[in-house]
């Protein structure tokens, strides 16, 4: 499954893709474009990436998680381009025999995406203003 997508993320499909008869647990993280009081009237976000590296780095993050939790299956997708308010910008699903692994691996991959995968966002506001946004503490 392509990790960088320009169409809406189909979360149900991602969840289904890591389920199997031996998997009793799945943990799914979904990050969405939000309008927080402190952010002002955001209407969408434009995501861009250093695409070749973003794919490679996400692949490395997932490989590390699989080394650490070998029974876990993982899938992750990140949107690029224009993402409207409320739409998912990122989703990570971890399927596992047991819940602790599913939670830990899902979180590991999500932290890796935030800290290591070269993706940027520009917030688009109702009034037409645009602003590059660092993501301290965000979604």
């Amino acid at each position, binding site marked *: 499954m392509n990790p960088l997508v320009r169409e809406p993320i189909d979360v149900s499909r991602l969840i289904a893709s890591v389920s199997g008869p031996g998997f009793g647990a799945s943990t799914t993280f979904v990050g969405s474009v939000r309008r927080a009081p402190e952010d002002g009237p955001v209407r969408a976000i434009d995501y861009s*990436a*250093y695409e070749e590296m973003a794919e490679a780095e996400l692949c490395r993050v997932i490989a590390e998680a699989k080394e650490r939790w070998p029974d876990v299956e993982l899938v992750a997708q990140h949107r690029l381009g224009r993402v409207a308010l409320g739409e998912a*910008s990122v989703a990570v699903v971890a399927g596992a025999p047991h819940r602790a692994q599913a939670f830990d691996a899902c979180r590991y991959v999500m932290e890796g995406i*935030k800290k290591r995968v070269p993706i*940027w*966002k*520009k917030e688009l506001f109702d009034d037409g203003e645009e602003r*590059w*946004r660092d993501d301290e503490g965000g979604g």
Partner: protein
Amino acid sequence: MIRSQTGDIAVICRLFARYAEVVGREEVKIELPARATVGDAIARLRQVVPNGSQLPERPLVALNREHVLADHALADGDELALLPPLAGG
């Protein structure tokens, strides 16, 4: 034997997001002496591109699509990327 101080290796610098906007370029080829480091390349880049001094002196960098530190050595043909603070998710 005397060797040239520049032009021994060529490095492609890639710029993204706000850094690309600052300098109005997404890609800049620079030449550097042999044994130059990532830090040397950043310093050169800040001199040669318009508004280069507005780029940070120590940005997050990736060499050939992997995160590296500023003291990493460069080789001819390397792809060096300057990464603004990451904001995925």
